[in-house]
């Protein structure tokens, strides 16, 4: 495994633990979609796809893909027993109306106030926000997952975001390949967990944002 793949695997494995039995969960496109593989053993978890599906199933068997059944990342999927289809307005009624227990989104930058930027780099790259701006205000809990640093080694965990925001003060928890942070209700990052094999010094060196350290920092074994 390359170092990058290793970092992403670590993030995904840790983030999957955020999904509890009985939750209705929206997984953002990209890395968050990979969490779906780790929900099979959970009870009654329904994955929502904001294009209009509650109850995403596994990818189709070879030859059984259906152009009319895709997830928010436009990948062919299946629907689990108990799934439902609906239009986009109803889908976002679920999201805005507070019916989604957990949203896991990818990030480009997160600030120490819990701001999230993940939809464009001015002049260089534009993807659009898709449903992310709705999700960060509508889901009961917002978890952002991202690699801690850019390829150049710059911290993505910022004092203030430099990129256009997806939402201000919306992140509840940030999971990176180095650590897990919670955003306090007053605004401010608290380091609550170190990823396996990572030291507090490593996190401090790699982090632009100011953060405090919880009284009891946990660390799972590798």
């Amino acid at each position, binding site marked *: 495994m390359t170092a990058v793949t290793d970092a992403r695997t670590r993030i995904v494995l840790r983030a999957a633990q955020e999904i509890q039995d009985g939750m209705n969960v929206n997984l953002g496109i990209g890395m968050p979609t990979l969490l779906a593989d780790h929900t099979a053993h959970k009870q009654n978890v329904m994955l929502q796809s904001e294009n209009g599906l509650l109850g995403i199933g596994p*990818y*189709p068997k070879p030859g059984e893909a*259906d152009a009319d*059944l895709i997830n928010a990342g436009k990948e*062919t999927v299946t629907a689990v027993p108990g799934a439902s*289809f609906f239009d986009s307005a109803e889908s976002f009624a679920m999201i805005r109306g507070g019916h989604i227990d957990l949203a896991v989104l990818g990030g480009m930058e997160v600030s120490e106030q819990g701001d999230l930027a993940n939809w464009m780099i001015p002049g260089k*790259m534009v993807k659009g926000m898709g449903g992310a701006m709705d999700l960060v205000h509508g889901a009961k809990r917002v978890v952002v997952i991202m690699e801690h640093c850019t390829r150049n080694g710059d911290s993505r965990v910022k004092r203030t975001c430099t990129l256009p925001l997806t939402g201000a003060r919306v992140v509840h928890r940030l999971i990176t390949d180095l650590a897990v942070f919670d955003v306090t209700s007053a605004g401010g990052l608290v380091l609550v967990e170190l990823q396996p094999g990572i030291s507090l010094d490593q996190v401090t060196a790699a982090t632009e944002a100011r953060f405090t350290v919880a009284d009891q920092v946990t660390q799972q074994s590798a």
Partner: protein
Amino acid sequence: MSQVKVKTSFAEAVADVADGSVLIVGGFGLSGCPEHSIAALRDLGVKDLVVVSNNCGVDDFGLGLLLKNRQIRKMVSSYVGENKLFEQQYLSGELEVEFTPQGTLAERMRAGGSGIPGFYTATGLGTPIAEGKEVREFDGREFLLERAITGDFALVKAWKGDAFGNLVYRKSARNFNPLAAMAGRVTIAEVEELVDVGELDPDEIHTPGIFVQRILAGGSYEKRIERLVEQAA
């Protein structure tokens, strides 16, 4: 007025779309996209279109055809990632884009078709899309005023439909289609199967025919898959 709505060709169905028309187009990615109506618009060659649609197809299919042909002046969309032509035309300033969050876009269409001029949502607060918009507090929380959208025409794709314009969609290809149908002053529906009136169970109809002005069967559908992902064999 329940008139005969069935058209015999896509050229006829889109003939009065004009330069500068505002089009609301259903579909999410290529799923549920009205591929035949779009192809007819490309052949018609109308320019300066304002297109309201969540995405803009891919470079050589769906709305991407109109983009490639430089027929679109402005897009109202939520997500355009993975569409190189779109990104190029936007970053070069050739194409005007009004980025609208996906849920806000859906609700703007629904409101437009429902006679509701605007609504408040927390979505977009503190971001570039809030610029110039009214912020109002309700119960101690701030919300943005978003305006409804209507279009001169709406292009939608359904699975089955009848001569009254009643529509049934299939699986997640429903997406924005019912909302687009509501928001068009003239809604053009293309269906895989045009069935006899009475054949659709009234309980199963997703879009009542009152929202549809023209309907026609598309014949063969390519239904291109943007990202084929399968389990390992």
